[in-house]
């Protein structure tokens, strides 16, 4: 993984970019925090926020010429936020006399500030804070300069005086009535480590660096009006602050320019969109300044401009409270540490790789590929937590084993002879399709492992329908069938070691079958094929249905309204979106589109194997999704249905409505358990072979035991939650009875047995009544216990 490149992507994230008001404030007052505190009514905190960035804030806040306001994005939707008016109210309601500061030793150097006006006193206090001994030379008999122009026009003389006392309180020495001019300047330059010149006017023109305020004399810094040539109060303050930074850097011999690009007014990368913002008018003052409630109301109008598009759309980012900038920094750290805890593992395994973030991000940052690459890197470095994806990967290898996996050509004409009689041949499309058998497999129906596991009984019907419908229009091309798993779990788990062999296997079948078009019925298959098998032409089952016709089933046309939950894996597949909607409408349903649909589809929580790695996170996804609509949900991915039903919301698979299977509204909808699913796959293969290819699966691959296992609903829930298979439980019990390897509790008459199967030790507590076994509890651990 190229971590430097990754960090660059993270830097593109504008989540932490300031709003335009802050970027246009020469001292970068944190307007969002400021208005947020006002809104809460905490004026003291709001004042602290001002104080943080604005020196002499009790004065400046009253007279600032507020360049921020003209830039506020609210300006066209009700009017700019009255930031400067708010500052005035905050001073009146939130000002608190500063606590007596400790006098720190001033050892870093001696600085002369020439001119005790606004920029001069700002520079002086800033340098004092940094540990310099500062001396001010003022030609008149008082400090403050142009501040006094506001006496009675915004500022009270008593408050000006009170605030200026700060200078002497800090131990800054002041020489009044001392004029420094071009003639005697040299003596000061020789005497002091650096000079700040802020007299508002000067007889000689110096060359002044606009970024550092350094003049052509290295130790001479010039700011304020001499440099800016304008009367802006806040620019004057800003130049004093910046000159102090420069002087400090000059004396400590650090780079004069490094990371100072964003001092003063700068351009923010944030381009806050106001398309959906409702206009709210500026709150009118009823007195010379806002009253408390008026201020709160005005502050509330502030949009708190920040880019939160992705985190607003994604419960994963919400759960971990990250946006891509910080997310990527976390990944970077996780990838680089050698010793210590990889604390970002859980987060990385909780992203569904749904791709929504990229869709909503104004600068196009997406976590999907980053997370994928990160997981691959973790696997390569042996740092991927074993338990995170273990169950799903074992399930995948089950699906690709002989229990489920199989490939068949369309039954040949020769083999189907027995079917070719009247009325069969006249009324059954499937038989006619067989009769037209060409021997050339033009299409290969690939239902996928999850649809086959959860919607088992549709698969044979779909296959027969496809043979009939396709052969009717396209006599050249037979339709074959291929059962297996596309490898999506390995892809999600970052298993670089498993993916190539999975891809290879499919590719070989494709070649052997004469390069047919795959008919895909699962959204995860679709994206896996797209990514790893681009040479294989694919078409979605829904498109085929839409094009070649739906199965003829006697269905009462639904009158319901359904919300379509698009599968996130097919967000860019507009053809699938169209076909699905067309089918739904043909069947007589109306559609209420969700806010997040099609390319903006939200994930059900199954993506990225999140339901396996972080159950709570998967629950967040489904809960977020199901609250989007009142209607029953229509899905076209088996796993979406599984997730939504488990979230206690009614969900139809597209096949349910195609085959006219109404959901009984009176009973809770149920999905097959993990064990059911493996059994269903086994059963499906057996059934199809027998029914369609007239083949008998010789040895039943599953074990039979001489006990009957009784599992209550309650225990079943536990089994599911703990990702344990009934077949494993049976093995434990079988072993315990045969070997007597078990504990016995004389009080309850329960047995407790353990058995290590592959990398997990399973514990089963049960009651034995003859050959009847009642399951009491099941749990497991991965740690190995040495019994010696």
């Amino acid at each position, binding site marked *: 993984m190229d971590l430097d490149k990754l960090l660059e992507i993270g830097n593109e994230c504008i989540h932490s970019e300031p709003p335009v008001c802050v970027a246009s404030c020469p001292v970068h007052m944190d307007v969002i925090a400021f208005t947020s505190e006002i809104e809460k009514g905490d004026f003291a905190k709001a004042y602290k926020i001002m104080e943080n960035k604005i020196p002499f804030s009790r004065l400046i806040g009253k007279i600032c010429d507020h360049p921020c306001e003209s830039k506020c994005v609210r300006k066209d939707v009700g009017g700019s936020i009255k930031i400067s008016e708010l500052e005035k109210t905050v001073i009146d309601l939130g000002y608190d006399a500063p606590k007596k500061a400790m006098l720190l030793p001033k050892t870093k150097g001696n600085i002369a500030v020439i001119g005790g006006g606004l920029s001069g006193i700002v520079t002086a206090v800033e340098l004092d804070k940094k540990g310099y001994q500062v001396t001010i030379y003022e030609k008149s008999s008082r400090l403050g300069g142009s501040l006094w122009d506001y006496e009675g026009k915004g500022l009270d003389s008593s408050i000006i005086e009170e605030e200026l006392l700060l200078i002497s309180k800090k131990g800054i020495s002041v020489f009044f009535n001392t004029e420094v001019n071009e003639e005697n300047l040299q003596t000061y330059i020789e005497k002091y480590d650096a000079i700040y010149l802020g007299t508002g006017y000067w007889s000689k023109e110096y060359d002044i660096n606009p970024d550092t305020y350094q003049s052509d004399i290295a130790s001479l810094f010039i700011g304020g009006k001499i440099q800016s040539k304008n009367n802006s109060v806040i620019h004057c303050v800003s130049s004093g602050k910046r000159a102090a930074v420069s002087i400090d850097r000059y004396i400590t011999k650090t780079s004069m320019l490094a990371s100072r690009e964003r001092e003063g007014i700068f351009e923010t990368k944030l381009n806050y969109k106001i398309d959906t913002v409702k206009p709210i008018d500026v709150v009118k003052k009823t007195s010379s300044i806002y009253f408390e409630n008026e201020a709160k109301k005005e502050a509330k109008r502030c949009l708190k401009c920040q880019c939160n598009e992705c985190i607003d759309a994604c419960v994963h980012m919400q759960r971990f409270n990250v946006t891509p900038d910080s997310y990527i920094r976390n990944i970077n750290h996780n990838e680089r540490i050698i010793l210590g805890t990889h604390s970002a593992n859980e987060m990385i395994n909780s992203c569904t790789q749904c791709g929504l973030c990229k869709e909503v991000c104004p600068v196009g940052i997406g976590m999907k590929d980053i997370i994928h690459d990160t997981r691959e890197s973790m696997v390569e470095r042996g740092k991927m*937590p*074993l338990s995170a994806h273990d169950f799903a990967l074992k399930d995948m290898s089950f699906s690709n084993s002989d229990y489920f996996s199989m490939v068949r050509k369309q039954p040949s004409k020769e083999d189907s002879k027995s079917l070719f009689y009247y009325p069969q041949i006249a009324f059954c499309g499937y038989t006619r399709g067989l009769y037209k058998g060409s021997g050339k497999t033009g299409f290969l129906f690939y239902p996928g492992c999850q649809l086959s596991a959860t919607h088992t009984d549709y698969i044979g019907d779909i296959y027969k329908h496809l043979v009939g419908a396709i052969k009717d229009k396209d006599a050249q091309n037979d339709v074959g069938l291929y059962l297996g798993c596309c490898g999506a779990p390995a892809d999600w788990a970052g298993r670089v070691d498993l993916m190539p062999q999975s891809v290879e296997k499919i590719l070989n079948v494709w070649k052997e079958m004469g390069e047919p078009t795959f008919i895909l019925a699962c959204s995860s298959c679709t994206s896996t094929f797209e990514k790893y098998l681009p040479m294989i032409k694919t078409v979605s089952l829904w498109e085929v249905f839409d094009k070649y016709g739906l199965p003829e089933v006697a269905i009462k046309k639904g009158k319901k309204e359904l919300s379509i939950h698009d599968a996130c894996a097919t967000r860019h597949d507009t053809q699938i979106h169209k076909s699905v909607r067309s089918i739904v409408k043909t069947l007589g349903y109306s559609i209420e589109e969700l806010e997040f649909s099609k390319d903006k589809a939200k994930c059900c929580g199954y993506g990225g194997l999140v339901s396996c790695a972080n159950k709570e996170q998967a629950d967040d996804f489904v809960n977020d999704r199901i609250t989007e609509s009142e209607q029953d949900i229509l899905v076209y991915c088996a796993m979406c249905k599984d997730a939504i039903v488990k979230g206690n919301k009614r969900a139809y698979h597209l096949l349910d409505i195609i085959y006219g299977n109404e959901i009984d509204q009176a009973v809770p909808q149920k999905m097959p358990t993990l064990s059911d699913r493996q059994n269903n796959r086994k059963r499906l293969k057996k059934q199809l072979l027998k029914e369609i290819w007239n083949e008998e699966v010789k040895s039943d691959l599953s074990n039979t035991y001489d006990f009957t296992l009784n599992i209550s609903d309650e225990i079943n829930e536990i089994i599911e939650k703990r990702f344990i298979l009934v077949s494993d439980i049976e093995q434990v019990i079988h072993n315990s009875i045969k070997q007597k390897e078990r*504990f016995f509790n004389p009080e309850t008459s329960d047995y407790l047995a353990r058995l290590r199967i592959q990398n997990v030790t399973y514990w089963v507590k049960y009651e034995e009544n003859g050959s009847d076994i009642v399951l009491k509890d099941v749990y497991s651990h991965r*740690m190995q*216990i*040495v019994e010696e």
Partner: protein
Amino acid sequence: MKDELNITNKWICDKCQESLVLEKVKVRYLEGNFEVELLKCPTCKMVYINDDLALGKMLEVEKGLEDK
């Protein structure tokens, strides 16, 4: 895993019909090797682990080692 000193434990080994005794047992996971006191059959050495331990402390240690 110490707190597994379960005095009220009623389980006996079904094969050996022996009461369980508390003894040091070796456990391993990934790069980790520990010794902990667990209940086991003194004869056949079968070690007893209850659900609290498996789903509590053991799981925690497993996760900790996986994130190392």
